[in-house]
């Protein structure tokens, strides 16, 4: 309990710091909204050519789309600090973190919230609920949606942690490799069945970004897997997130700081 309180205090303190930069906030939110909308436009172009995509209607695809945006937004809001890790390793800036009596990974994750995330978060929520409404989804689904977004956020963040941990071994002052999980997540805006079997396997099992919305959505649309599997994703995301800590610790062992 005390630990949770501490993390909340750390998060809110860091959030407060972020509000120092007002112009950055408005520009950032605007940018992330525009990015989501431009992707939406390309989707709209597809649907002017075909009434459905691999058996998925426009509304159904928009639900997937919204859930990806929402999960991305959540991860950026709470855990965006992970993007700085490659730079910190090169500059030896992890020293400070390591002198604190806290879990270094969790404390790092929550101490640099990204306010731009509101753009993605709001777009995601609006699109998801709009789609649910138009699909006449049962009420239960409305309540479960935030949970599914949360598990998506954990899955995605775990992927980022895994890739960031590689930086300890392969030191480079860029976070380009973190774009891999980012792009994988974006790939799951479309139903995974449109991809070849190998890619499906990657997106659902190996890096299961595709599961947190695809499985629940499939259940909703009666396309196959049931509620049980949808809820299993929740548990799996927690495990996946926890396990990413192993990679972090593996990396930390090799941390060498810098001179002086």
């Amino acid at each position, binding site marked *: 309990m*005390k630990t949770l*309180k*501490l993390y909340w*205090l*750390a998060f809110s*303190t*860091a959030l*407060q*710091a*972020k509000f*120092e930069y007002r112009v950055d906030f408005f520009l950032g939110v605007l940018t992330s909204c525009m990015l989501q909308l431009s992707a939406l436009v390309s989707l709209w172009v597809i649907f002017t050519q075909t009434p459905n995509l691999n058996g998925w209607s426009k509304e159904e695809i928009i639900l997937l789309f919204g859930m990806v945006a929402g999960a991305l937004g959540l991860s950026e809001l709470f855990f965006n600090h992970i993007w700085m890790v490659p730079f910190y390793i090169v500059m*030896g*800036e*992890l*020293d*400070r973190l*390591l*002198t*604190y*009596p*806290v*879990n270094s990974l969790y404390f790092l994750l929550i*101490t640099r919230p990204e306010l731009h995330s509101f753009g993605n978060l709001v777009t995601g929520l609006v699109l998801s609920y709009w789609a649910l409404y138009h699909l006449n989804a049962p009420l239960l689904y409305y309540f479960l949606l935030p949970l599914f977004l949360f598990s998506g956020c954990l899955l995605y963040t775990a992927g980022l942690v895994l890739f960031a941990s590689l930086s300890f071994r392969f030191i480079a002052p860029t976070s380009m490799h973190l774009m891999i999980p980012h792009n994988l997540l974006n790939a799951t805006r479309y139903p995974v069945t449109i991809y070849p079997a190998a890619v499906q396997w990657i997106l659902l099992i190996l890096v299961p970004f595709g599961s947190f919305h695809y499985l629940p959505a499939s259940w909703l649309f009666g396309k196959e897997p049931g509620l049980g599997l949808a809820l299993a994703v929740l548990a799996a995301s927690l495990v996946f997130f926890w396990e990413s800590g192993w990679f972090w610790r593996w990396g930390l*062992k090799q*941390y*060498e*700081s810098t*001179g*002086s």
Partner: protein
Amino acid sequence: MENALHVENLAKSYKRSMRHPGLLGAFKGLFSSKTQEFQAVKGISFSINRGERVGLIGENGAGKSTTLKMLTGIIAPTSGKLEVLGLLPWKQRRELALNIGVVFGQRPQLLWDIPVRETFRLLKAMYRIPSDVYEVTYKEAVRRLDLEPLLGTPVRLLSLGQRMRCDLAASLLHAPAIAFLDEPTIGLDLTVKEQVREYIRDMQDKFGVTLLITTHDLKDITEVCDRLLLLDKGTLLFDGSLKAFEKKFANESRIVADLERPATASALRKLSAEMKKHGGIVTGGEGHKLIVSYRKEGSAPVLTQILLKRQKVADLTLEKTDIETIVTRIYRKKPGKN
């Protein structure tokens, strides 16, 4: 006395990838993975008792910071034994962190964008500082280091000196059992340096904090510490009290005299001969200035008397080699220095 930390044959080596010169060389480096091992700390051993005040000195690259980083659990040693407060730092880092305070003078420890006060509040929760302890340490820091006007300012807007004062206060808020201070006075002006030292001394008195300070400013050592560790190229060159250090290395004192008029060659020769009998050597005799150096303690009165008898002296100073001079001399004279 209780042991605060114990180190045996502690060593750390880094792997550095080999670099080829020039742009073409840099490009080649992309495809070759040859590494070179660099030994930063080469097997050092020492123990520090609770409440001791120890200064760790050495030239740039001597291994001071690397040692400190191993002691605080930031990096793992390559080999050797290491125990701090009964814990293995790099394995039990979090547990250890609760009981130590760390300042890296080269890097700010505080959160960059938020006011100092908020950072302190966060640290209080993080270190689970009991309110009665916090009450004392916080007030003491604010009073001693003049923090009042800085508390509401975001850390990034503070000057170096202001930031350092806040950093130091932050690292001692939880009255740690050991404080590791890496260059706590770097880049500060004289008054702030003095203030910082006074604060450290004060916290040491009040809470019995064990101190390990690395610095390039030897005044930090002479005014705060009573034991000295001298590191050189990763090995421990000296470990002992400041007194012992002076005794071992400061074996020369000087009498510097200002003569009323330059001594003649023959007078100088006679003076030299008599001085020699009492262990003094006339080293400089140009113009009005005359220098007599000696090694035996307690020779000053005799030598001065001889000088006063033989020459008309306008002014006279006795110079003892201070630690700073000794250290500079050691750095410069070291065998095998490249």
